[in-house]
């Protein structure tokens, strides 16, 4: 029998905390999109171009970092029964630090100077550090979902490694220190950030949300138990090979990572094919396209394809895609849950809480998906036909604007219903149900 004693009355953080992260994030995706449209030619010429580095950080720190931090603060109490300590303070600190960090990092990488780069790196690192410490503490107190908790822990550990490496690389870029094999260390920083932090967190969250929202069978236990530590071990091996300078170990590490994430993508697609809830919505379509991108990225690596293409598939196709799709479920669920909670605990049951689709309808969400896919295909095609980067950037800007607009719309609807509940008299009749 599980104990119910000592449970915090405030399991979920106030709704404005995750929404603050979710509303900030699309602004950085929009900035990345504009940079893509304006500086696309130099961006595609080399992954080392200032524009490519700036776009990558705007997306990874500004967009993915914001959404995933907000989602983590929200999901820990829901899936693991463990609220993040001092969540108001943590949310109020991490959100602006990541925003300033992403902006200044991008500005510094675009040629804004060493000071901008250092300020950006320090702010982003501090923001992530506060997240790692607070979310890490919550994970230690977790009471459920052990496989997800472990994957989240590994993701936070990966984030820490990516942050430390990022700080060291910033110092090297500013000329204060000198690093042997600089490009290889950038690859390792990218791998810990994109595959470790983003990839492992998506994996851990998927173990919960894929069966939950699409009513699929659960992930096989062997997969959820072994895959996250296997991927983390491969990342570690890939890092150690730089120290030992062993080429074969590096190839083996990348191979294991490609295999692990391909397996995850295949199993996810398989589970979704066996879902009980047959309706195909924008979230599911985002998942499908993201998982196909993971498989294509692995194939591209296997066939020694251009690293830029692998990067676009992972960053834009898988990362931005799956996170956008999950927002379409998380945002309306939060709005519904907080209104329900407010209504039941205040005893004001006269106002009907709308269903989830009222907060975030599927049709505009599908339009956002279409813009996202156009941007993805356009960016990939621009590798061969560079002029396509301009429409691709515009499509990405539209997808970011739609995403932000949909989240804002959900918040406005939430506020409207919350005010109606507030103004209504107390009642014990369950009309609102």
């Amino acid at each position, binding site marked *: 029998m599980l104990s119910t004693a000592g449970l915090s009355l405030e*399991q979920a953080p106030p709704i404005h905390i995750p929404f603050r992260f979710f509303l900030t994030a699309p602004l950085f995706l929009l900035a990345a999109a504009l940079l893509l449209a304006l500086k696309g030619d130099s961006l595609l010429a080399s992954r080392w171009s200032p524009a490519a580095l700036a776009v990558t950080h705007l997306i990874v720190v500004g967009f993915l970092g914001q959404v995933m931090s907000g989602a983590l603060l929200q999901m820990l*109490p829901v899936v693991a029964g463990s609220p993040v300590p001092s969540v108001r303070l943590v949310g109020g600190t991490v959100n602006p630090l990541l925003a300033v960090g992403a902006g200044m990092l991008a500005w510094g990488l675009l040629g804004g100077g060493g000071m901008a780069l250092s300020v950006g790196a320090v702010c982003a690192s501090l923001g992530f550090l506060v997240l790692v410490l607070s979310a890490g503490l919550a994970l230690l107190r977790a009471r459920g979902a*052990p496989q997800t908790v472990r994957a989240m822990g590994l993701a936070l550990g990966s984030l820490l490694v990516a942050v430390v490496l990022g700080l060291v690389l910033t110092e090297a870029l500013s000329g204060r220190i000198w690093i042997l094999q600089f490009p290889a260390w950038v690859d390792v920083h990218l791998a810990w950030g994109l595959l470790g932090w983003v990839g492992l967190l998506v994996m851990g969250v998927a173990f919960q949300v894929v069966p939950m*929202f699409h*009513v699929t069978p659960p992930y096989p236990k062997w997969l959820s138990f072994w895959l996250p530590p296997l991927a983390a071990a491969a990342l570690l091996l890939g890092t150690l090979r730089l120290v030992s300078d062993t080429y074969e170990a590096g190839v083996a590490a990348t191979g294991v990572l490609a295999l692990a994430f391909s397996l995850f993508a295949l199993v996810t697609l398989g589970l979704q094919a066996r879902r009980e809830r047959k309706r195909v919505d924008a979230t599911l379509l985002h998942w499908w396209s993201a998982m196909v991108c993971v498989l294509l990225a692995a194939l591209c690596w296997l066939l020694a394809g251009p690293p830029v293409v692998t990067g676009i598939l992972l960053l834009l196709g898988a990362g931005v895609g799956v996170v956008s799709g999950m927002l379409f479920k998380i945002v309306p669920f939060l709005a519904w*849950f907080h209104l329900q909670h407010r209504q*039941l*605990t205040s*005893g004001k049951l006269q106002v009907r809480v709308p269903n989830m689709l009222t907060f975030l309808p599927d049709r505009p969400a599908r339009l956002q998906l279409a813009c996202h896919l156009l941007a993805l295909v356009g960016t990939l095609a621009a590798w061969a036909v560079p002029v396509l980067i301009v429409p691709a950037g515009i499509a990405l800007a539209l997808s970011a604007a739609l995403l932000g607009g949909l989240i804002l719309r959900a918040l406005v609807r939430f506020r409207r219903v919350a005010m109606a509940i507030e103004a209504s008299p107390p009642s014990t009749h369950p009309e609102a149900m």
Partner: protein
Amino acid sequence: MDVPLDVSALEPPEPMRQILEALFDLADGDRLCVRHRREPFPLYDILQRMGYAWETSGSEGRFQILIWRTAPPVTDGSD
């Protein structure tokens, strides 16, 4: 009497909605016996504030939550 309710094949927010609806219909002295695929942590907060007690048993993929009324609801208006 224990009133059974299986929400294990429903997508969010249906499990919570149906549980809350069933609680409003629950007769005095009865208990709601919910079957769920995951432990519904967010529900506990609402139950506690509404004056219900609960006992959860089971493990990943198969939980049983027994809910019964113990006190009048706490109406403090906060969330």
